[in-house]
């Protein structure tokens, strides 16, 4: 079934500059998999090397945080909207440059 995935501004350059992308999926995991199959460059920004969602990537289904639902196994139905919302973190120690 077709669900809409809202792409956050910092990732739009990796998703054909689109604000949203429609994918066929029955769960959040399937939707994100379809999204990153379609736009491979998104993958490294959404998923860590172990394949899990990065800790600062938040996913909502119709405004409900999937952490409080069934995480990436949360079901989606036609017409649902999945939003990817950044959280921002950082701090000093161990200079990267």
């Amino acid at each position, binding site marked *: 079934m077709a669900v809409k995935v809202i792409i956050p501004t910092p990732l739009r350059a990796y998703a054909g500059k689109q604000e949203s992308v429609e994918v066929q999926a029955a769960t959040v995991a399937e939707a994100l998999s379809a999204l990153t199959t379609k736009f491979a460059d998104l993958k490294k920004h959404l998923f860590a090397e172990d394949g899990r969602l990065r800790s600062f990537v938040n996913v909502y289904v119709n405004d409900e945080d999937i952490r409080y639902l069934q995480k990436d196994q949360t079901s989606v139905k036609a017409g649902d909207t999945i939003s990817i919302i950044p959280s921002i973190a950082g*701090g000093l120690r161990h200079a990267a440059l």
Partner: protein
Amino acid sequence: MSRAPLTVREEMLRRIHAHGIETYPYECCGALLGRDGDGSREVIDLVPLANRRDDSPRNRFEVTADDVRLAEKAAREKRLELVGWYHSHPDAPARPSEYDRDHAWPWYSYVIVSVQNGVAGDTASWRLQDDRTAYDPEPIETVEHPARIQ
């Protein structure tokens, strides 16, 4: 890779410094609102935010998804875009840490102010490279008033 300068109104730079001094020795953080044009970006306003890392505010900051949505809403109301984030490094250089890089998003400008002994000093902006391996420096150009990008 050399980036186009990030234009920042002087008042905004003063406010970022004041925020870093206010929260010293803890890290401050906030959102940068402005306009992103073809190869140019300007910071016009700020949304100072609370550092949600209560457990380790001296060397960590966190802006929750709810606060990100708040900042996006503030930007929309002002007909601006959320173009990046600022935070302070108490008693440390204005350079991204490994932890910063690991947690960064592409596209956003990350402005860091060094606050040494409670005094705001060097301020620098950084953009994450596409492959996430490093940051590019983004030169800061300060202006007194005007919005250059209309």
